[in-house]
């Protein structure tokens, strides 16, 4: 028997906000649904949100869960937590906060809170009509855990975002490795790979300005144009876009002319003029930080 907190049991025995939200096409209100999980793994969650369009405020949240005690309690907690928040605020809710709301979850059940957070993201992306890049890449990449159908992309993401350092932790967060266990060694390799990439990034970040600005210094060759574009793309993909996507927006690299980098702002980022300016600055400062302090970002 799992060791559950009183709060988990309370929400399990008497779940709040269970059920669906029907879309009655009320003016000014939109209903959105987010699905995550899989019946093969024994848990799945469908989250329904009712949002006031003018304010982006979540008026109501309900859930349907196929899952165990902690999945039901996590879903119930999530709906309680997000009611009354704006979508941007809701997107900041982390799986850790869901677990904290419950007074903690057994380590091996942390994936239930992750599922809650993912369903929330899915529902909000659906609402905003933004394709689920963050989730889509889960299905790309190499299949690592065939027991749970989990790819290296998803594992890498979990490792990066949660700073995981052991295969056991990966299992608790995304289930990979929790079946036959034959993929555990591969998960170890992925963790190692992510750490190496991270170290390399730090090293290359430090060496890039030297390369680009003064190629005569040291033994390193300057970056070719192709390398430079690849590096900009990499920083955008790995450091900038996840943050924007989480806030309902996105960015695409459009063109590069010397130090001038042209980007297209998408989703929520593209719609309002003040945020465009802020974002331009935010992206610029990250690229200056990582690549060259002379970079200028322009939104087209």
């Amino acid at each position: 028997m799992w060791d559950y907190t009183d709060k988990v049991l309370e929400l399990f025995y008497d779940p709040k906000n269970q059920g669906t939200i029907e879309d009655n096409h009320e003016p000014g209100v939109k209903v959105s649904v987010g699905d995550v999980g899989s019946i093969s793994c024994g848990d799945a969650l469908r989250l329904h949100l009712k949002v006031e369009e003018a304010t982006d405020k979540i008026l109501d949240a309900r859930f349907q869960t196929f899952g165990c005690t902690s999945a039901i309690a996590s879903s119930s907690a999530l709906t309680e937590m997000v009611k009354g928040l704006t979508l941007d605020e809701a997107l900041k809710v982390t799986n850790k906060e869901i677990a904290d709301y419950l007074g903690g979850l057994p380590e091996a059940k942390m994936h239930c809170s992750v599922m809650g957070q993912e369903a929330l993201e899915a529902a909000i992306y659906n609402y905003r009509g933004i394709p689920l890049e963050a989730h889509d890449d889960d299905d790309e990449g190499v299949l690592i855990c065939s027991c749970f159908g989990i790819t290296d992309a998803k594992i890498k993401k979990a490792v990066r975002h949660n700073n995981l350092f052991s295969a056991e932790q990966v299992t608790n967060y995304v289930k990979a490795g929790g079946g036959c266990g034959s993929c555990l060694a591969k998960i170890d390799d992925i963790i190692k790979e992510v750490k190496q990439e991270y170290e390399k990034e730090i090293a290359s970040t430090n060496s890039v300005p030297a390369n680009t600005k003064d190629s005569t210094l040291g033994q390193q060759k300057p970056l070719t144009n192709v390398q430079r574009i690849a590096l900009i793309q990499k920083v955008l993909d790995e450091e900038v876009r996840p943050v924007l996507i989480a806030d309902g927006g996105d960015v695409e690299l459009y063109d590069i002319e010397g130090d001038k980098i042209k980007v297209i702002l998408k989703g929520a980022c593209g719609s309002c003029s003040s945020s465009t300016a802020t974002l331009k600055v935010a992206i610029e400062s990250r690229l200056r930080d990582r690549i060259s302090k002379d970079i200028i970002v322009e939104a087209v």
Partner: protein
Amino acid sequence: MLKNCIYLDNNATTKVDPQVIEAMLPYLSDYYANPSSMHTFGGQLAKDVKKARENVAALLGAEESEIIFTSCGTEGDNAAIKAALLAQPEKRHIITSQVEHPAVLNVCKLLETQGYQVTYLSVNSKGQIDLNELEAALTGNTALVTVMYANNETGTIFPIEEIGARVKEYGAIFHVDAVQAVGKVPLNMKTSTIDMLTISGHKIHAPKGIGALYVRRGVRFRPFLIGGHQERGRRGGTENVPGIIALGKAAELELLNLQEATKREIKLRDRLEKALLEKIPDCEVNGDVKNRLPNTSNIGFKYIEGEAILLLLNKHGICASSGSACTSGSLEPSHVLRAMGLPYTTLHGSIRFSLCRYTTEEEVDQVIAVMPEIVEKLRALSPFKNDDAGWLKQQEQTLVNR
């Protein structure tokens, strides 16, 4: 709660029979001598141990000299497998089934890493093996066939003697894990093809920490626990005298009660099963209902998850068990139900009710009274309602394609 619980988890473990406790108690206090000692005190205990051994032998239809006391079913299984392989070092092939207890399955997996070839026989949707598949797998290189008598999760009984007859044609050793079957079905080693058979005390109302292994006379046996000359040199270690006395008493009671208890359990089990299937839509019995232990009923309640069912049952003081991933400690649902190819909708919501001779009609009726409400409550939470639901269908499809 603990005292008044409705205990329908007897395939996990059983309550120790009060008569068993009474029989063993003096051996925890006054009769503490070592049965191997030369003095009269020890000698008396050796006689008591012998009597217990006779009782266990009687339950199995075996000779007293064919019984080795062990610490548990796991030890019995491990010892039998190791003995069979050591006795025929030239043979490197083992046959078992996909639905064995981990005490067999995990030993076989380890042996595979040590150069043995293992065939894991598949099972059909009822959890039954195919004798043709067994026949095709048997070769002159097969050292051991080790299968369970009856499955702990579904109660499905394998056609043991038909398996044994084929095994004997190829000269392999035949080991049977009868931990779940003993005391529930009549056993007679005298007319059987079984070479070795494992039993465990705590499944037949003896305490935990005692078991026995039957080894047919003439089967070469090398000890798993190497030490002194106890158990005719086949298992070192000072005897667990209170445990042995308890197992002896438990065996005596099982033999005495077998027929009547079996009839009662079948009646109660069928009453439970029939009522649940009638009152609750979308559920089905897992396992081979024709060849099944009298006390076991494994029912899959579609679209909901087993751990949640268990916790709600627990609130009503009812103890049962589930094959769902969330109760297994790992993240995978029961390997037995998976091997049977059950759809995931049923698999995760499977509950095992296992009865014993103490189970009463009132207890069964109590389960019948609360289960429909529990299932309804959880189904109201579930996003899956029927097999046609788009999301569910899409998911099952992805699994097929994978």
